[in-house]
């Protein structure tokens, strides 16, 4: 297997009324056909990571550093037409709230058709046929009728299916899913997760799936990257993360989830709040909340220490255990 996406030391800083160091050296690679969950509290930089991958951040106020390679291409250097051709057939995105992400005044079928017309130069009838086919694939009932529906005429679950149909219409190699089930009811959430997993296997694409819910990550992902304060603090397979969490933050999350017992519990059960990120972290960003923090943790940022293929932890306790 070779990596489809290679993110290397990505930093993102927003200026404006308030400076935010949203990402502070994120490194992550995603193999072909792999599903990686980005897990973290709200504000930890998950969405910003996804948006960087499509250059969707506001250009003027954003300073981006580091590198993103997609199948060997430098994503951050794409411009104009090249960028527009990259978005859609190579990388596509589904959003948290489909009622906001779909254009309210265009019919669903039109929104899907215009995408394939744009990228594949299909005629309108062919594009409409593709739209119909996509609605069938995401298992929307009576798809012929739904083609001419507007977003407000559909339920939340149907809208998210339509959004998925739209995102997959050009057969992307990488799908970015930004909490696509957070706005849905529990039962609908499960259906959409299963659908996504199925489509992913059918189409063989890679997925980066953002969530704040460990339960959801378990359902969908092969591998997990835990984010905190714009950094990745731990990566590993689902099994490794669940059975053998190494980073104190991951342990806290799991404990909170186990005690909470309910799937869907929010990740805010650890006392304290994440840093505001007005400055880039110079020490372990988790130190103020870490139950086992020591002086050294406040002195320098712990590096991401590799523990084998696809497994890494950013905590000095891990460095010591190696010694």
């Amino acid at each position: 297997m070779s990596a489809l996406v290679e993110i290397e030391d990505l930093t993102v800083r927003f200026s404006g009324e308030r400076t935010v160091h949203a990402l502070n050296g994120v490194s992550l690679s995603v193999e072909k056909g792999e599903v990686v969950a980005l897990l973290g509290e709200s504000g930890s930089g998950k969405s910003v990571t996804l948006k960087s991958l499509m250059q969707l951040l506001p250009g003027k106020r954003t300073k981006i550093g580091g590198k993103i390679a997609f199948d060997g291409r430098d994503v951050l250097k794409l411009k104009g037409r090249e960028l527009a051709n990259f978005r859609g057939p190579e990388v596509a995105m589904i959003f948290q709230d489909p009622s906001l992400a779909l254009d309210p005044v265009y019919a669903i079928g039109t929104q899907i058709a215009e995408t394939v017309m744009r990228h594949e130069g299909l005629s309108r009838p062919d594009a409409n046929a593709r739209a119909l086919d996509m609605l069938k694939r995401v298992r929307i009932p009576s798809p012929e009728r739904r083609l001419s529906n507007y977003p407000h005429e559909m339920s939340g679950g149907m809208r998210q299916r339509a959004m998925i149909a739209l995102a997959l219409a050009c057969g992307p190699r990488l799908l970015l899913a930004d909490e696509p089930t957070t706005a849905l009811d529990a039962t609908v959430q499960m259906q959409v997760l299963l659908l996504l997993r199925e489509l992913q296997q059918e189409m063989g694409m890679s997925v980066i799936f953002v969530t704040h819910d460990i339960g959801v990550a378990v359902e969908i992902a092969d591998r997990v990257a835990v984010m905190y304060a714009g950094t990745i603090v731990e990566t590993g397979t689902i099994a490794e993360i669940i059975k053998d969490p190494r980073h104190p933050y991951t342990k806290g999350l799991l404990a909170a989830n186990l005690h909470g017992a309910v799937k869907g519990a929010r990740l805010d059960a650890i006392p304290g709040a994440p840093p505001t990120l007005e400055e880039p972290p110079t020490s372990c960003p988790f130190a103020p909340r870490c139950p086992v923090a020591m002086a050294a943790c406040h002195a320098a940022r712990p590096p991401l220490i590799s523990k084998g293929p696809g497994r890494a932890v950013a905590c000095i306790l891990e460095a010591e255990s190696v010694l």
Partner: protein
Amino acid sequence: MFTYLLRRLVYVIPVALGVSLICFLLVHIAPGDPLVAVMPIDATAEQEAEMRAVYGFDKPLPVQFGIWLGNAVQGDLGRSIATGRAVAPEVTRAVGNTLLLAAAASVIGFPLGIFFGFMAGYLRDTVWDRIITATAIAGVSTPNYWLGMVLVIIFSITLPWLPSMGAGPGGSSDWTWDWLHMRHLVLPAITLAVVPMGIVMRTTRALVSDILDQDFVQALYAKGMTNSGVLRHVARNAAPTALSVIGLQLGYLLGGSILIETVFNWPGSGYLLSVAILQRDLPMLQGTILVLAMFFVTLNLLVDIAQSMIDPRISRA
């Protein structure tokens, strides 16, 4: 869609009736005796009663309204108290001239307002945005009769390029589609266009700027749409609200041109109204207001229908 149209059409009937009643009452409630202007000062009580009977003012108000409305529906708006001539043809000609002026002002004001508003919204927070917005504010805050007079001084008096009086050579009030007449339209139309243009510009800018902040715009870029493709979506989202603002401004152009018509001696409804008010010419006043109001009602209907055709949420919800 069809039932919506039908429902909307049926709604027009009570609105039109209400508007007619208000037109009728407004004029009757206004202080002053309408016959004063035409009655000889030394008229006897009998003469006065006779006069009242001729104009129907002796009957109870509801009956007067019924008769007036019945005639109006058949195109008869009565006779002018001041001149004795039939009201309908005069109103038709005057409102026609006002429509002409409003149409000319629309052709100038709305496309420019929309275009520059769109530019400012799309290029918001740039120099272009600031220039356009400042121009719009200046346009909206300039009193248009004052602007009209300035234009007359510059283009009719200092540089005698364009006429400033009437709708045709020699102050004629009959319109013909030739340059001799169209020259007369230029200055009043520009003067009238400035305020609606500024308002449409600012509204469009705000609309476009709001829409660009919505999530679906980012989603459009995320699916690989080019700038022009995204702008098409933005335009369609902005259209319903822009249309309703344009509809309102058209209404303003029809009803609010009274000062401009006075400045330019334009033989339109505003001019007719001001004369009718001064002469307390009741039938003329009622007739003019009624016809203008009906245009207003129709205009609103058209805007509603156009909106519902663009925005599916309006008719289907």
